[in-house]
């Protein structure tokens, strides 16, 4: 798949390849296998919903893809980068330059204004694009709140800032872990619609963990994680 969008870096085909991924934890002295050989792909411009019951390993899979944790076995390839082979610094670089992360808790920096929060990741990645930044502000409807601090915003507004920050670097893949978990239904719909719109506009891949079948249905594809494997 080729994207003709000027915003996205020139990547074709699948941006994410997960092959035979395994991960176990020790809990109460016992080895608990969370992922038992997960295979998953996400194409550029594609939005995928990752569903599953609590404890099925959805967040763990997302964290492994983001390089926040290390897998026991298998392979994660993001474009041409082998995530599992990277050092801590390499994984930090990957998150900075190629990934956008959105969490349920928003995870904004409370001491920075909305404007600085939006620009933060793109600035440390050295890829700040004023035009794209302006477009994000406009599409996310954050123009009136740029000088405010996160604590002065509602939950929905904070999550919009988090999405904007994640997309400001023009990532290859946007990873979202229950991004609407803290929002009411109407706000959740509104935020997700915005996210989908921006993903389409940027042409990046989008992988979202959610419990909600209703929200999952609005994305291009749904995959269900059950007993540590993609069902």
């Amino acid at each position: 798949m080729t994207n003709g969008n000027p915003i996205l870096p020139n990547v074709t085909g699948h941006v994410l390849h997960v092959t035979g991924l395994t991960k176990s934890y020790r809990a109460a002295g016992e080895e608990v296998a969370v992922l038992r050989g997960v295979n998953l792909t996400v194409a550029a411009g594609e939005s995928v919903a990752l569903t599953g019951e609590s404890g099925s390993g959805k967040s763990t899979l997302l964290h492994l893809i983001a390089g926040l944790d290390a897998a026991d076995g298998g392979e994660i390839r993001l474009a041409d980068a082998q995530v599992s082979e990277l050092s801590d610094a390499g994984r930090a670089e990957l998150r900075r330059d190629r990934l956008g992360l959105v969490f349920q808790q928003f995870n904004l920096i409370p001491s920075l204004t909305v404007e600085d929060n939006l620009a933060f990741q793109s600035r440390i990645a050295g890829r700040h694009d004023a035009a794209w930044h302006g477009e994000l502000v406009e599409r996310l409807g954050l123009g009136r709140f740029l000088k405010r601090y996160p604590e002065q915003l509602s939950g929905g507004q904070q999550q919009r800032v988090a999405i904007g920050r994640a997309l400001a670097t023009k990532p290859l893949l946007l990873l979202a872990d229950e991004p609407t978990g803290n929002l009411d239904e109407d706000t959740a719909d509104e935020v997700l619609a915005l996210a989908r719109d921006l993903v389409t506009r940027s042409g990046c891949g989008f992988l979202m963990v959610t419990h909600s079948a209703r929200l999952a249905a609005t994305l291009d594809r749904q995959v269900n994680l059950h007993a540590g494997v993609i069902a």
Partner: protein
Amino acid sequence: MKRALWTLAVLLSHWRRHPMQLATLLIGLISATALWSGVQALNQQARASYDRAAATFGGTRTAMLVARSGASFPQQLFVDLRRAGWPVSPVLEGRVQIEGRSFRLLGIEPVTLPADVGNAPAVGKADLQAFMTPPGTMLVAPETLADLKLAEGARPQANGGALLPPLRVQPNLVPGVLVVDIGVAQGILKMPDLLSRLLIGKATGRHAPLESVAGDKLRLIEPDAETDLERLTDSFHLNLTAFGLLSFFVGLFIVNSAIGLAFEQRLPTLRTLRACGVSARMMNVVLVIELVSLALVAGLIGLVCGYFIAGALLPDVAASLRGLYGAQIPGQLTLKPQWWIAGIAISILGALAAAAASLTKAVRLPLLATAQPFAWQQAQRRWLTYQSALALAAFAAAGGFLWFGDSLLTGFAVLAALMLGAALILPMLLEVVLSLGQRYARAPLGIWFWADSRQQLSGLSLALMALLLALAVNVGVSTMVESFSRTFLVWLDGRLAADVYVNAANDEQAHEIRAWLRERPEVEAVLPGGRADTQLAGAPLEVLGLPDHATYRDNWPLLQSADNAWIKLRPGDAALVSEQLARRLHLSVGDRIEVPASGGNWTLNVVGIYADYGNPKSQIAVNFAALTRRFPEIPLTRMGLRVAPEKIPTLISALQEKFALGDRNVADQATMKAESTRIFNRTFAVTAALNAFTLGVAGVALLTSLLTLANSRLPQLAPLWAIGVTRRRLAAIELLKTMSVALITTIFALPLGLLVAWCLLAIVNVKAFGWRLPFHVFPLQLLWLTGVAMAAAFAAAALPVIRLARMQPASLIRIFANER
């Protein structure tokens, strides 16, 4: 680089949003640096002065030849040694009185004076002629000129009437010293053809052995790296350093508390930064850069504050050193570049040490742990056990130092270990008391009160430790000073038993005064006095002559004595020794000492030990008649008089009128006691000031901890407000809680302080000064300090409590809603 700067900007933005936390951190660092640097400035100033004194024309930094017995030797020996190739230069030393004040007179011979005599001021060639030819020149330090209230070129008159050479300022000279040509000095001191010592310059060729030229008349003294003054004043400076160090640590408690809280509050931000792609290495580097930058700013401000603190304390320190040791310290502060560098370094190292725990946490920060801003509170509970174990180890170390140690340093080590142990065990003690309170509470609000106090404890424990240490030191030092004060006044009554003291200008005048006094019916007794200076076991010794009179027999402050000690003193083969000397040489009643006297060694039986507080020199007291036989050259100018109290003023006026004596030459007992007490009080003014500073810093520590905790406390209080407890009542409960934990801390600090006082009196003072004081407890003083501590706690708690009482309901609703 840009990436690091952006990360740094994010970290710094935290302080912009939390200015109170930044202020706390800076106040802690500034206080720590200021107090430490201030004390170091004082020490440095004093040590520089000792060096100047030591280097003044043959102090202990120069090799020299001195008489094997007695204080002086014939000038012919100098001539003989020069002829034999010895590069020696003569010095004559004595004391002259000008306007009733005593000055050290040094006679030198500038032509032969070795070029390498320390940093002694050289007499320039142009001035050589003026210096050596009559009337000569008298070199003085600027401070001495100011003391004399004379201008350069003026000729002061000595008390004997002799006109001294014109004054000329020599900036590097030590205060209190007058330097003249040796011929002039011999004339002034009436010691023709006599010398005190010969300074030895660098030998250029071979010279005959000393014995072949001077026989056994002279002995060689090698240069010494540490001066007498340095040795004597070590304890004083150690004391100052200990105070500086304590204040420094109390300051660091504040820093640790502020950094700890800031780190916990920034944990989510740090995780977000990591999630956004900041590597662990970069984040740690940036955290250190941030801390070092803050420490640099605080260090510079702290140094300026330290300079002013030192400037403010210097007059009292100078007075203490003059009163206790006779050391002359100039009143103007001059600091070396090393002081500035060391100050900045200590600020940075202190900040890094205080932040070590937080930085370690940052290095080990797990990326995926849920952000728990107050996880440290739970962690603190686990640490209580470790802390208590450490406290027990510290107490054991204190016991070990006490049992096995035998030096001033181990004395301080006992104190340090004791206080460290007490500070570490404090949170556990508070936890026990508060959980007991919780167990016995019945009302729901009461149960919450105790439970919430326990939860708050971890955030306050460092500040409470600071309060504990500051209070304990205050109790300890105040008890020591008060014990000293009480003992000193009783001792003074014994030592100053005569009613009037007279010091004649010279022996002739003393003779005339004695003859005149014998004709006065109101004079019940004339008690002649005299003292000689010699050396014993390598240290200066003062030999005091006491007449055989009931005034001394009834009042002299003997600590131990043989039977009929005063009768045994009469024949001249026995002595009373000062407590300092007895401790230094491990002397007991019944022992013997050999004292070098003018005619050879003088063997004396020790028949008593007496208290001699405040005297830096070792001293012995012998029969006056025996002293004059053994040291015939000493001036006999001092005398004490027994006079009926109502006749004292008339007698003093008559004496002053008849013999033109100034106030310094004749004084009554009350004036002498008042002067001694004034010197005593001044001596401890520095201690009082540092005490107040330390308590002030502890107060700031408590205030800053409460302020930084105030916001995080709101989520705990908002639910109570939501269920109907008024803001006013909540504020009152908060105040009560702070006051309760402060009170428990204070109650613990009082016995600890008394233990500190005991250590100071029984260990540190004995090692530092050579005397042991009786231990007294002053209940009113303890009550006063408790009041001060509670006032400090109230003041610290008031601001956050007022903020809470005035908080808008909307803010509480928001907090309540968000926390749910």
